[in-house]
């Protein structure tokens, strides 16, 4: 059985990278990973990526915060049971402020947690098959093929204007 070879195409422009991705999707080679120096809508579209789930984390955080804010205000007020100028101990009208602030705070924290988990952070190991130029200005498209088909994949990247790096 032939061994899989990992090959990366490095592109200077977004359109070249998108064209390479589309070429790969039409071929029988496997697309593994893409590095992009900028957040690119064109690449997301070419890859048919699902919508990010970060918004759901933010929403859940916000809802949790709303109730947590009211709960904090109510529980601390009930701890002392002090009646101030005839106002009820569980005074919901001013507790809206605490509820609102906690909604904002927890929504932001939820957003942060969503961001960290959805981008699979923290990553403790280095990436396999990585080229340092991807941390610079290059778009990197990593694909694999069987050893005897190397040339085809190689020429696909070159045709789209890329530099090719073959990993051992």
């Amino acid at each position, binding site marked *: 059985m032939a061994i899989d070879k990992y090959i990366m195409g490095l592109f200077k422009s977004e359109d070249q990278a998108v064209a390479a991705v589309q070429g790969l999707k039409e071929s029988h080679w496997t697309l593994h990973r893409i590095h992009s120096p900028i957040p690119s809508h064109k690449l997301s579209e070419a890859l048919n990526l699902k919508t990010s789930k970060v*918004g759901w984390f933010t*929403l859940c955080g916000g809802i949790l915060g709303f109730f947590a804010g009211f709960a904090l205000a109510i529980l601390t007020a009930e701890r002392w049971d002090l009646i101030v*100028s*005839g*106002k009820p101990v569980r005074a919901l*009208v*001013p507790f*809206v*402020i605490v509820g609102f602030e906690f909604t904002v705070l927890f929504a932001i924290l939820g957003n942060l947690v969503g961001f960290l988990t959805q981008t699979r952070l923290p990553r403790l190991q280095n990436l396999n098959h990585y080229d340092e130029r991807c941390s610079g200005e290059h778009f990197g498209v990593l694909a694999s093929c069987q050893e005897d088909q190397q040339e085809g994949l190689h020429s696909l990247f070159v045709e789209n204007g890329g530099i090719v790096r073959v990993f051992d």
Partner: protein
Amino acid sequence: MADEGMKSSYWIVWVAMVVIGFGTFMYLATSGHPGQAWKAYLINFLIWSAIAQGGMLFSTLMHTVKAKWSGSLSGLSEAFAGFFPVSLILFLFLFFGGAHVFPWSHGHDLHGKEVWLNIPFLFTRDLIALFILYGLGFGYLYYSLQLKNVDTTNGKGIIRTLFRILQGGRQLEPQVIRKRMDMLAILYMLAFVLVLSLIGYDLVMALDPHWISTLFGAYTFVKAIYVGLGGLIIFAAVMHLNPKNDFTLPSSQFHDIGKLFFAFCLVWADFFYVQLVVIWYGNIPEETAYVIERVMMVPWKYLAWVVFAVSFVIPFFILLNKKVKTMPAFMMVLAACMIAGIWLEHLLLVGPSLSHSAHTLPLGINDVLISLGFLGLMLLALDSFLRQFPELARTEKREVS
């Protein structure tokens, strides 16, 4: 020619709406219920004027912050200036109902507030204020049209002819036009804040002359921006969905104005709340009586919850969704519901002051018919303005979808 025919058939519908509204109003006013008639008139004057003033504000705001996304929407929002002259005439007409819409004008001890609260002074100052606001709006529009390269040397219509006379064949440099627009846009927004505050104090808050909320003016103009955006969304959606128009908007623009609408939904609720919390803390009978009557007493308390739900809770939860904001037909329905909610909110504010002993909610088919008349006036104004300046309702070429 077919297009012309379509326009005139719409025109007849709108005139019919105005006739129905005016007929209902006259019938009520002359058949022993003038109070009801003038109450509906006041509410409608306030809400439709606010839609026009807030709609126009969108363009000045976008110009001032140098927004690039709002091109065609700004043009459309400027068409709301067509309602300005109508609003001014409607305000003058309100003078005849002074005794019915200002309970303080007869038999009230105003404890020294007579200096401010007397009908001649009130009408003079509010008329001047509206005149300044609308003048600045038209001034801004005058230059905005020049920047859009509107050729006023041809075309019909009163306002277009007026612009032609004012322009007198002069051509200004675009930089000069932009500078003047900058100044007029800022002045319009400043006047918007001051004039809407004054209108809020004079025509809504002062109906109960002993109740004071310092923030009521700010609450009024924030509400006007909210309904103005709602009106603009409806207008844009109608223009976009009608295939006969040369006007389309990419869904990203509906998304953006939806976000702004969502933001002002929150700002409106915030301005409502900050007034409430101050009154709640202070707990002074003079201030709390106004709120208690409206949120805890029959029949108003039910209306209060309806207003809160329709104008805030429902739009808030629906607008959290991104996709909804990009659907023009849905946004149109939502904005219309919100405006209806704000109509009811006006009823909640002025109703108890005008009908103290109401046991049932003073709301009926007559109010709907009178509102229909005002809607007809708004549609007539927008239609006539767009026919004079068709340039306002064109999709800008440089926009990207």
